């Protein structure tokens, strides 16, 4: 029997009843707040869906495969934007995942205790930098460096691959991917570090007891155990990369095209919405932009749900292990 059950006896005083009423009002109030988030998400989805009707009716599924984006002739296709968003995010992951895991392993397993919290703090501080600042830095510092050093270097050693050919502007898919990588490193490394710290010490001790070296302990005891959680952290980073707008607009070149070369400009889904929405006057044009928003909403929502589920499952597993 819960300890509060005496309150529900017949002889409860007026004071207690009043107290109880306050309690339930508070409970319902917070419930409304909690539900309002859900309602908001549903409303956003509904609004996006209903306002993209015109474009959905006009282009149907062809919207997903059309490669032209021509506002003058009212031909709209989402494929180059989907390609740009997905490819730039994948490049970001390829760069960011190894670095983030390195940071997380160092911070959770190897670093002296004294260094641990200032270093984690610094990494998390990176997540607080506004994206437009990354964009400006990218445009004025990173892009010239890519143009003058990185791209000639990549071309000289990997130029036989189609990914590293073409004009060297600095601006383009590669720059977009690198700036995204820098922006998602804090997210991935912070979450991975938490997950690794959550690995029970008994695991490490067991591995050491078997005579494992430090690297083997990290490999067998920590990484294997934290696998699902790290995967979740990576998906959270991917979620951020997919939706990131401002910094990418400033360095990716904003050209709706599908090219194998990473030196060529590209365009992202959030980028085209931010760029063209305010001056779009024709109904169909607006509707097509909103449909891109709808697609992005669906993609990021699914990513985030998937990531949360993974992290949540892993946390529950640990709780089981610790008890």
């Amino acid at each position: 029997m819960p300890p509060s059950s005496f309150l529900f006896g017949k002889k409860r005083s007026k004071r207690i009843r009043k107290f109880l009423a306050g309690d339930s009002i508070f409970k319902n109030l917070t419930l409304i707040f909690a539900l309002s988030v859900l309602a908001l998400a549903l409303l956003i989805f509904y609004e996006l869906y209903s306002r993209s009707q015109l474009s959905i009716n006009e282009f149907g599924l062809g919207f997903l495969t059309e490669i032209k984006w021509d506002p003058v002739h009212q031909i709209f296709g989402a494929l180059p934007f989907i390609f740009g968003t997905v490819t730039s995010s994948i490049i970001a992951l390829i760069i960011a995942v190894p670095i983030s895991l390195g940071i997380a392993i160092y911070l959770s397993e190897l670093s002296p205790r004294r260094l641990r919290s200032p270093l984690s703090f610094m990494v998390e501080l990176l997540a607080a930098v506004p994206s437009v600042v990354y964009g400006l830095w990218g445009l004025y510092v990173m892009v010239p460096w890519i143009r003058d050093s990185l791209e000639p270097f990549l071309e000289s050693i990997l130029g036989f691959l189609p990914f590293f050919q073409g004009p060297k502007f600095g601006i383009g898919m590669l720059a977009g991917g690198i700036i995204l990588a820098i922006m998602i490193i804090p997210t991935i490394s912070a979450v991975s570090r938490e997950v690794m710290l959550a690995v029970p010490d008994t695991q490490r001790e067991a591995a050491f007891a078997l005579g494992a070296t430090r690297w083997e302990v990290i490999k067998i005891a920590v990484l294997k155990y934290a696998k699902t959680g790290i995967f979740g952290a990576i998906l959270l980073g991917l979620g951020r990369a997919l939706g990131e707008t401002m910094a990418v607009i400033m360095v990716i070149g904003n050209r709706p095209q599908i090219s194998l070369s990473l030196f060529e400009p590209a365009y992202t889904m959030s980028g085209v919405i931010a760029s063209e929405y305010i001056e779009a006057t024709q109904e169909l044009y607006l509707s097509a932009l909103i449909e891109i928003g709808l697609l992005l909403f669906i993609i990021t929502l699914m990513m985030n749900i998937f990531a949360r589920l993974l992290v949540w499952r892993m946390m529950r597993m640990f709780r089981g292990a610790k008890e």
Partner: protein
Amino acid sequence: MKSKSGISKTGAIALIIIIAVAIVAAYYALNPQTQTITLNGAGATFPEPLIKKWASEYNKLNPSVVINYQGVGSGGGIQQIKEKIVDFAGTDAPVKDEEMTTGELVHIPETMGAVVVAYNIPGLTGTLKLDGDTIAKIYLGNITKWNDPKITALNPELSLPDEDIFVTHRSDGSGTTYIFTDYLSTVSEEWANEVGKGKSVDWPVGVGAQGNPGVAGLVQQNPYSIGYMEIAYAYLNNIPYAWIKNEFSEEFIEPTLESVSKAAEGFLEDMEEDVRVSIVNSPDPEAYPIASFTYILLYKEQNVYGASGSLEKSKATLNFIWWAVHEGQDYSEALQYAKLPQEVVAICEELLRSITYNGQPIITS
């Protein structure tokens, strides 16, 4: 609890309230208020600095009229006037008849804009000269080198490098792009067929950047680049820009506020008929060819706002616009906008007189 000076907390609060009420009362007593009229406008960002300047100057002359203008973009402005949220809207590209679904909108040209073709060619001494066809070919990707015979023919005195042209353009929808592509469509048939004109177009080549600052940044940073931007932006940031050939006088025209104003003078007859005429490639011999009006939109029949509108409010709106196209023009040049020529002001007057409330003209004098 007593405070040190001996006044109780309640007493102090009461005193503050009394003082506040007295101040408000005194304010109203000293300023016998005629009712304040608030006019709301929204739209294009290009004329925003000028309209904001007008709003503050006009408010000094007529303290009872407060004007708000939100630079949300032409699209947003048109949307808001259609939903009858704003009293006037600003737009760079005119609204077509078939798009006026909620009532006829009068276009009042309130100022002029021009687009310059900026470039970055290291080591170049002298000013680059271009004509419309060459610019179109560069942006179509048909001319890819700075020392292309077509460019060197226009610039015999310059030594142009054997380098690839790095083409840049706006990625965000903008009136600037509209003016530029309107010009290219007028002078190049190929451009008109393949690309066309609009606030965003399907660019055959080049890299897109956000806003005038974005394009300017790309041009300044990348050697051998070309880009287009608002004249004020290039001027204030000392970015070199090309002189453009006037097809009618065969002269290369430097973009200045005067040569931009001249562009309107080549189209006065067409403007009498419909003020929405494009003024690119002006036949006036001294005109800079890449210029355009930017417009204020007003409902021709003003009694469409229901309870939130009134004859008084419509009158205030028209008075403000009337002032803007007359005295307001004196503020243009300091902000790098071209003045409306006298003849255009006369057309504006005519247009403003045509606006009615319940079928009755509002401006009678």
